[in-house]
């Protein structure tokens, strides 16, 4: 199972095994990681699962779609170069070791 590490707003880190195909958001929420709100459950409709992807993975993970890009513009936290909505990043073997920082404000 590919692993993903979450850096929480308080600086602490949690590493989880992700089911192949589950999103970075789903992996966090199913395990009860706080800070990723995901109000809409992954429909790219709420921008409350905002993360900053670690620079080292930014190219591999890629950038947002146009729709996601517009959602990020309206996110509660100012976006950065590697901002993504974690519901739109599906885990796969290639992303094993992924690190994402959870945006400190989601709503």
């Amino acid at each position, binding site marked *: 199972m590919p692993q993903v590490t979450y850096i929480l707003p308080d600086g602490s880190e949690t590493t989880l095994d992700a089911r192949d195909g589950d999103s970075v958001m789903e992996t966090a*929420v*199913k395990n*009860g990681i706080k800070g990723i709100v995901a109000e809409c459950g992954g429909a790219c*409709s709420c921008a409350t699962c905002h993360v900053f992807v670690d620079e080292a993975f930014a190219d591999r993970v890629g950038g947002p779609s146009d729709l996601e890009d*517009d*959602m990020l*513009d309206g996110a509660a936290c100012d976006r950065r170069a590697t901002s993504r909505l974690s519901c739109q990043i599906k885990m796969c073997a290639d992303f094993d070791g992924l690190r994402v920082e959870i945006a400190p404000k989601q709503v």
Partner: protein
Amino acid sequence: MSRGILIIGAGQSGMQIADSLREDGYEGVITMVGDESIAPYQRPPLSKAYLYGEADEESLQFRNEKFYADNRIDLILGDAVVEVSLGETGGSATTASGRVLSFDRLALTPGSVPRKLDIPGADLDGVLYMRSIADARSLKSRWEAATNVVVIGGGFIGLEVAAVARKAGKNVTVLEGADRMMARAVCPITSEFFKNAHERRGSNIVLNARIDHFEGDGSRVTGVAMQDGSVIPADIVMVGIGVLARTEVANLLGLELANGAILVNEFAETSNPLVVAAGDAVMLPNPTGADGLVRLESVQNAVDQAKAAAKTLVNQREPYRAMPWFWSDQADLKLQIAGLSTGYDQTVLRGNPDEDAFSVLYYKNGRLLAIDCVNQVSDFMAARRCLTNGQTIDPAAAADSSVALKTLITD
């Protein structure tokens, strides 16, 4: 001795109450009873990603087993409360399988059931509803073989299924009894757009539809017979004509109802102070602060009202205040609604419906009440924040879609 909190109903609201109770520091026993056989799951994808085959049942689960174990949330699935007694300091419930569950406080999150269409032939195989994973499995198991899909009801759920069916190349007819689509939720501009948009994608939309009965071959549905004598061929009929609040347990307790739903106050308390209720089955004071009672069948309300209910259960009562919002994905059309438009006296159109991208802003006495956005997520995000903060947008300026809505927000 603490007997804990019993949550009856294991949907989105029930799950959220359990989660929030632990987050709010509640240390007692939490038991959640659900009559479905699987742990709490997301319903919205059932009519979209699940039907497309993009989401499986495991991916729909809200939490994994470890979460429930770590948080000491005792899930009782595939069982239902059939008797309940309540005194001044708590009570006990008995389930269909004979379990006896004692509690100090009770939370009701029973959700709703689809309203059934009671016409001749309604029990034919292939006449389906969409609410639970069992409903979705029934639909999916007949999906591949179906050529002709008839959807009864031009609301969110019906149009979502129609969009998936059309994208899969099926012949799709939507029968709506009213004179426009989604009439309860949106204004005529948005209704008209969705009618045209679904027609452009190849669906047949019938307004003011008068259905007489279902035709069948003895066991399976074969068509929908209209009152004018015409018959629309159907391999599947998906009925989406609204939902009814589940009030079985509320009735056992003699709780006060309003319009067939469980009446609560702004603290999610029912007419019995030991019992809270949240979610689809509840009639509640308008959470925007406006007058009146509302029923909100949405994820946002299921979650946010549950949080208020949990606060009440841990004696940190906070009035439930929220700006309702909704979404409906219909193939490539993303509808997002923020606010409640009830009582509007003016609308402003922004953008071009013919390009499948526009917003409608709803006003009352010149102040923004709500917005419908179709493929305009920037407008949605801006207006949602504006409404949440109690701000407004000048109606005279809002129509100019070359100016970003977020730059037009004023107090």
